[in-house]
């Protein structure tokens, strides 16, 4: 059931009406029922995997809580007992992680892994012919995060399996996250509430903003991307660069638009979900960019991979070795740099089993590691050159520098293979053919001049809103201070724009969300 389908709107509206009409004790079961209907609509087979992940992580949570209680019951002096329980807890987390991520691995990568073997071995190995369940990696991250939090005694385990299943399967988050935290999300899902019209209104507005980004901007830009970026690209470098810009606009409007729909729909039920984007266009470094892009994944990686990895014994040993042999700042940050590198590599590989994602991970990991090592040198250079790093000009320079680095990475992300990405980069620099920008080539990329104008204007509106927000402005609070007519316009105008320029345009087929495949 796609977010852009009438069925989804009907499900959301129906669930919201029932949710607020029924007795408050039965509110969370309504959300669970809506979530299961949403998931079942994608195929009953996929539900087996959803239930499997939910069952394994729910069970692990209960076992860990029992161990936490047993550990508390021991006296502080019983070090051997404490250590024994700690080892068992670690084993439970390890088995859970292997089972859950093992399933993600088999679903996403098994057949590609098999193809890497010589033909004789490949023939013997079994194939995995199940379809990838919707949102598998997102709800797996969310569930494993819960297990690790219970392991760390951050909160008590959920005893009720149905309530836990709702946390794992809450329907707006099933396509592409955000990856919620149990302590922030579950109490809201299980709360009893009466209708808050302000929240409903805000939810509808946020979801419409998401539909605008997805259906009016991203789906148009997608046509350009599909025409320009690919094998044997016949265009000059300038048009390829326009294609990469279109891909950047598409990716951002598609992913952040989808998340706005998710968060908007959740707000209709009074639920505030985690933010996933903090206006990455304003990032002043690559590290800052990744802090603002896909925030919930970044936080997951930080809390459950980067921190434990950096403080683990092998990395502590590496750190000691660095201090001893390298000395100075490089020696001190060697272990952290290595852990950072691993995290970016994992994120790269998570996107897909393709050499280009591996290179993409290395590209991001290397640049961030190098900039950490060079930080002091950069400061010295700035002082030597009398550069005022508080000035607007310098701030803009850091943003533009980040855009260039990100755009370079986008060549790798958008191309089907690494070689294609490299060839597109080479053409961009060596054969720009700028005349293609005004000789009518842009009007033969699958969209009309009007579509180009809509993409341009739409992107300008998104940028204007984000500039307002970046300066501390609150869009919806500002709208709510206006008179009734303006507030009414704020609903009617976007609705008309989405209907005319998104839903009812000739030959329109909404594409699925890019991050849905991950």
């Amino acid at each position: 059931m796609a977010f852009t389908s009438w069925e989804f709107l009907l499900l959301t509206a129906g669930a919201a009406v029932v949710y607020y009409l029924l007795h408050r004790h039965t509110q969370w079961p309504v959300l669970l029922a809506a979530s299961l209907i949403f998931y079942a609509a994608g195929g009953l087979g996929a539900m087996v995997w959803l239930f499997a992940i939910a069952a394994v992580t729910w069970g692990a949570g209960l076992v860990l809580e029992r161990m936490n209680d047993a550990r508390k019951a021991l006296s502080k002096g019983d070090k051997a007992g404490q250590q024994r329980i700690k080892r068992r807890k670690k084993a439970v987390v390890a088995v859970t992680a292997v089972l859950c991520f093992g399933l993600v691995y088999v679903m996403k990568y098994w057949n590609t892994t098999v193809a890497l073997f010589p033909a004789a071995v490949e023939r013997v190995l079994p194939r995995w012919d199940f379809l990838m369940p919707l949102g598998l990696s997102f709800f797996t991250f969310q569930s494993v995060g819960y297990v690790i939090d219970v392991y760390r005694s951050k909160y008590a385990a959920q005893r009720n399996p149905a309530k836990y299943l709702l946390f794992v399967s809450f329907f707006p988050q099933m396509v592409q996250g955000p990856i919620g935290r149990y302590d922030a999300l579950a109490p809201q899902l299980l709360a009893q509430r009466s209708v808050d019209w302000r929240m409903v209104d805000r939810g509808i507005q946020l979801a419409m903003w998401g539909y605008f980004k997805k259906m009016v901007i991203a789906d148009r830009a997608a046509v350009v991307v599909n025409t320009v970026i690919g094998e044997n690209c016949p265009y000059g470098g300038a048009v390829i660069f326009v294609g990469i810009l279109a891909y950047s606009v598409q990716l951002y409007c598609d992913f952040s638009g989808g998340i706005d729909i998710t968060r908007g729909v959740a707000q209709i039920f009074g639920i505030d979900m985690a933010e996933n984007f903090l206006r990455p266009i304003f990032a002043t470094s690559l590290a800052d960019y990744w802090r603002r892009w896909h925030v919930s994944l970044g936080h997951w990686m930080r809390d459950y991979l980067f921190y434990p990895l950096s403080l683990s014994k092998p990395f502590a040993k590496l750190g000691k070795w660095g201090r001893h042999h390298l000395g100075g700042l490089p020696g001190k940050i060697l272990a952290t740099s290595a852990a950072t590198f691993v995290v970016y590599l994992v994120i790269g590989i998570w996107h897909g089993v393709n050499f280009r994602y591996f290179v993409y991970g290395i590209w991001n990991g290397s640049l961030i590691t190098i900039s950490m090592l060079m930080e002091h040198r950069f400061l010295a250079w700035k002082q030597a050159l009398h550069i005022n790093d508080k000035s607007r000009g310098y701030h803009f320079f850091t943003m533009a520098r980040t855009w260039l680095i990100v755009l370079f990475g986008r060549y790798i992300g958008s191309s089907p293979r690494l070689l294609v990405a490299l060839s597109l980069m080479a053409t961009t620099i060596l054969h720009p053919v700028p005349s293609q920008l005004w000789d009518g080539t842009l009007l033969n990329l699958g969209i009309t001049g009007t579509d180009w104008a809509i993409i341009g204007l739409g992107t300008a509106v998104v940028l204007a809103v984000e500039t307002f927000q970046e300066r501390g402005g609150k869009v919806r609070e500002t709208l709510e201070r206006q008179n009734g007519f303006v507030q009414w316009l704020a609903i009617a105008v976007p609705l008309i724009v989405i209907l005319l320029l998104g839903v009812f345009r000739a030959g329109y087929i909404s594409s699925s969300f890019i991050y849905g495949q991950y």
Partner: protein
Amino acid sequence: MKEKIIQIMSEICPGVDFATETALIDDGLVDSLDIVNIVTELMDVFDVEINVEDLLPENFNSVDAIAQLIEQLQE
């Protein structure tokens, strides 16, 4: 102890006034990479074991909070 902590932090994150800031994490002055670099250095210098569970914003928002965490861990 506080002077030593400020010295460690200033080396890893130059340009931040650690003596007066009280929202190092909340205001984004120190990020997760810096935190781990600072933590590994603190463990080395003060001979304490800081666990992942201790990596909470409230423990690292100010030099005072860090000093308090180390004192707790030393007990």
